[in-house]
């Protein structure tokens, strides 16, 4: 017998004349949180608030005294934290989730270490070097730990390093090239993780991470195609179109394989936005907005109908 849900009680109460006290009893016994859940929640609440406030207080205390600390002490404290983190992971018998959280925190501390080093020795505001160093030094931990939040941190670091590279080193590249490179980076990550997940099921990463990559990919592909309007070179345009089409095709195939509409929804939004941009740039007057409004309504309605049909077909299979 399936557990009764809130939806059931609501539907039945709408089509019957059940009195309030029966509904109240039903809600209290079946839907509202039970004693067990309350004790777990309260324990979690007290300990996380307690630790959270305590640790923040300690951090604030160090921040207050930071300027007066000797430089060896500053670097020493962070290095001590990193070393104790690694020792904890290697030696202690805590469960894997806790070890992964400690690994993520230690990886963040590596960045703090480099930042403090740069601040003490005034190595110049070279953000590219900083992020590159941070990324390189936590690569091994990320691959071995294979923990989604750490991969998220790593992905953000990869993108930030690329951004600062293009900002400080290769600043003469066009908008299209920048978007294309970001697209390539994130697609490489997503495609690799998807393939790894298919080969070995222990290597699948959770959907929230893969969907975040997917959102980044659709954003960059939209930017790439829309910036093509200002490009002069035909072979380059063809290359970008080819890359984006291949990626979208792979996305559709993966959506069909996993029976999830998320990728298709994202790609549909991207295509609609690209079309709106081109209509606007080509027509370039008020009537363009009129066409865009009509197009937008028709396109969104059509896409949503398509997604609903797909979803129904896939949940019934």
């Amino acid at each position, binding site marked *: 017998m*399936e557990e*009764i849900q809130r939806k059931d*009680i*609501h*539907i*039945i*109460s*709408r*089509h*019957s004349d059940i*009195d*309030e*006290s*029966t*509904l*109240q*009893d*039903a*809600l*209290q016994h079946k839907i*509202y*949180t039970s*004693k*067990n859940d*309350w*004790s*777990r*929640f*309260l*324990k979690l609440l*007290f*300990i996380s*608030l*307690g*630790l959270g406030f*305590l*640790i*923040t*207080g300690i951090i*604030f*205390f160090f*921040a*207050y005294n930071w300027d007066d600390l000797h430089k060896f002490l500053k670097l020493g404290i962070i290095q001590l934290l990193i070393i104790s983190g690694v020792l904890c992971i290697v030696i202690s018998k805590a469960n894997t989730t806790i070890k992964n959280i400690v690994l993520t925190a230690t990886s963040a501390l590596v960045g703090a270490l480099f930042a403090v080093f740069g601040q003490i020795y005034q190595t110049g505001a070279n953000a590219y070097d900083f992020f590159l160093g941070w990324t390189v030094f936590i690569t091994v931990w990320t691959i071995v730990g294979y923990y989604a939040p750490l991969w998220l941190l790593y992905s953000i670091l990869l993108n930030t390093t690329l951004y600062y590279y293009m900002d400080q080193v290769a600043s003469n590249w066009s908008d299209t090239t920048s978007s294309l490179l970001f697209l390539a980076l994130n697609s490489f990550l997503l495609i690799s993780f998807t393939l790894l997940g298919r080969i070995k099921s222990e290597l699948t990463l959770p959907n929230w991470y893969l969907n975040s990559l997917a959102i980044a990919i659709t954003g960059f592909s939209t930017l790439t195609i829309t910036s093509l309007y200002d490009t002069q070179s035909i072979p380059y345009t063809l290359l970008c179109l080819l890359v984006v089409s291949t990626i979208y095709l792979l996305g559709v195939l993966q959506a069909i394989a996993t029976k999830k*509409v998320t990728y298709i*929804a994202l790609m549909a*939004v991207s295509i609609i936005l690209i079309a709106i941009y081109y209509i606007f740039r080509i027509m370039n007057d*008020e009537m363009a*907005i009129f066409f*865009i*409004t009509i197009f*937008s*309504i028709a396109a*969104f*309605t059509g896409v*949503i*109908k398509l*997604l*609903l049909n797909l*979803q*129904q077909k896939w949940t019934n299979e």
Partner: protein
Amino acid sequence: MNNNRSATSIEYLKSIAKKPFLVDEEAVSSAYASSSKEQQTMVIKALTIFGALLTCVFGIGFLFLIGIYDYPLFMIGLGILLIIIPSYLTTQVHETFLDTFLLSLYCTGYGLLAFGMSQAQIDIKVILICLLVVATFTLIYLNNYVIALIATLIIYGCIEFLLKEFDLYQLFPFFYNGIAILTLFILTKEAKIISYSKHLAKIYEPLKIASIVFYIYKLNGWSTFNLRTFQVLEIDSYSFNIFSYSITLVVTIGLFFYLITKILQQLTITNRKQKAIIYSAALIVLLPSTIQPNIPGALLLILSCFYINYKTGIALGILSFLYFITRFYYDMEVTLLFKSIILMLTGFLFLLVYYLTSKNLSAHEKS
């Protein structure tokens, strides 16, 4: 499968009912059938709202570009049409994909109505009252989820702006404490509301989430409250005074004790000594946080949503709690040293409560 579900649910309700009741089983089956047909994921709902808003922006943008600004009466007329026609259509048509289309027309209608009236030099008080009346009618006569959500937010917003326009600043403490009481009522009196009328049962969910969102918005107004000077450091705002602060304090603590009473009932704790300990522990934990009333307010939201097992509310409560605490410590005009000491003391307090209650709570878990 759905028939099984409805049968077991009806059976269960019959078994615990105090008086016999009649169920329209056919209507229940068809309600289940239509709800499973429209099984929308978050993705599709988000896409619907995004598409509707985007189209609405383009539509209004186009109308402004072709100079509809010069024809305010036309704007008002078109606005009214765009509110009434889609509203009527949502009651006739039950295809979810048309919701986007109708919703964007509905939102455009509100925008046109408001802009048109302001172009026609109508006083803003009248505009707000008109929007309020339109939204109220929508809430009373329509059952659509998203429309009810938007209408409730418009009603709350209009009341707030009307109070400002009429310079009724003294009524503000009653307004936001009223919102707090109303939100808590909606959250804890679910059975009462959904059994009252079929219409209320249908708009209960959007009403709930709209009230929670507006409650968090009103709590945010306390963000820069400074207890020493009773000033709020925001650009277009008014200063609180000892009266509004005390009323808010009394209401918040009162609502907390009401909630704790309900929770104790749920946990079937009847031992007087235990009850007294819990009430006094709650008072001790609450007292320091009343320096800024939005922190116990957010805590109230978390506890009440957890009590009724409403996951979205819990998430919103936790996010707003973290945000308010962060702003509190960020804005405080004391030294880092003082802040660090307060933080460490609070941390110790919570860990102490944890150690004191963990034995008790684990005993409950095992039983």
